[in-house]
């Protein structure tokens, strides 16, 4: 995920990680739990998917490591770009959902 791609539609994993990190820094397991809760159990992320996504998000400047004192519990938090991308993606999804609702009401 390059910086140029960060503004495009996000994968469900990336979107949910951004959402989980909004307003609070978390370690990996905490992110997994929050993603499960936010998605009402529909997105269950394993460690491989989580850290693969986090690596790409760090490279894209969306997320930064905030506390590395315990190598088993590294904390991550949103970068300014991550917050902006989350906001943009949320608005895009809202617009799509609103359009879908309009279509469903008509049919």
């Amino acid at each position, binding site marked *: 995920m390059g910086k140029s791609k960060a503004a495009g539609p996000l994968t469900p994993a990336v979107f949910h990680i951004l959402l989980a990190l909004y307003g609070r820094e978390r*370690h*990996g*397991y905490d992110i*997994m739990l929050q993603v499960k809760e936010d998605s009402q159990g529909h997105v*269950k*992320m*394993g*460690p*491989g*998917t*989580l*850290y*693969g996504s986090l*690596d790409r998000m760090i490279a894209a400047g969306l997320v930064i490591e905030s506390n590395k004192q315990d*190598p*088993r*519990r*590294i904390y991550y938090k949103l970068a300014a770009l991550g917050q902006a991308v989350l906001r943009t993606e949320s608005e895009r999804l809202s617009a799509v959902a609103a359009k879908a609702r309009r279509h469903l009401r008509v049919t």
Partner: protein
Amino acid sequence: MPQQQYKRSCSLATYARLLELYPPSFLQRHRGEMLQNFADLEDATESKVRLWLLIGRDLTNSLSSQFFRLRLGRYVIAVFVTWMLLFAVGAFFHGATPGHPALHVFGGVLPGMLAMYIATRLNRAPQNGISHFFRSPFDIYVTGVFVAWVLLFVIGSFFYGPMRGHPAMQVFGGCLIGMVAMYIATRVYGMQ
């Protein structure tokens, strides 16, 4: 990091072994976190089956994603495409290859394994010199797979006769199997 810091279980030991399938650079960054996460998941889960279903799906998705980002992965794709082109051109100009199907498959396994072996030796720090060969678990695994394939095809041909199918596909399938076998070996046993 000392392994004693984790609450050891059979599942955690199995997971730790499976983690070796990931690229070393990825493991260097996340091994500790992933083991801790697994231990947390194991503590929280009510069903081991459900836990391993999640881990199985996670490994499948993330390993394939990691693999195709590696130089090794791109090499595999290049060899895969080259083999496809070779056989397409060969079939177009010369038609079906004559011979025994088991030999076709076996003929494919061998270059597949060799290609992967060369790739892994080139992409990792190799131990040069023939004196090192057959001394590491990796080389023993390679020899074991090779001998197993010879035995399998001899037994298969003896009991069931020739298999059906296009020879090019048989060679191609064999090549793919050889490469996969070699890839698993390089990840499980390392590249020392």
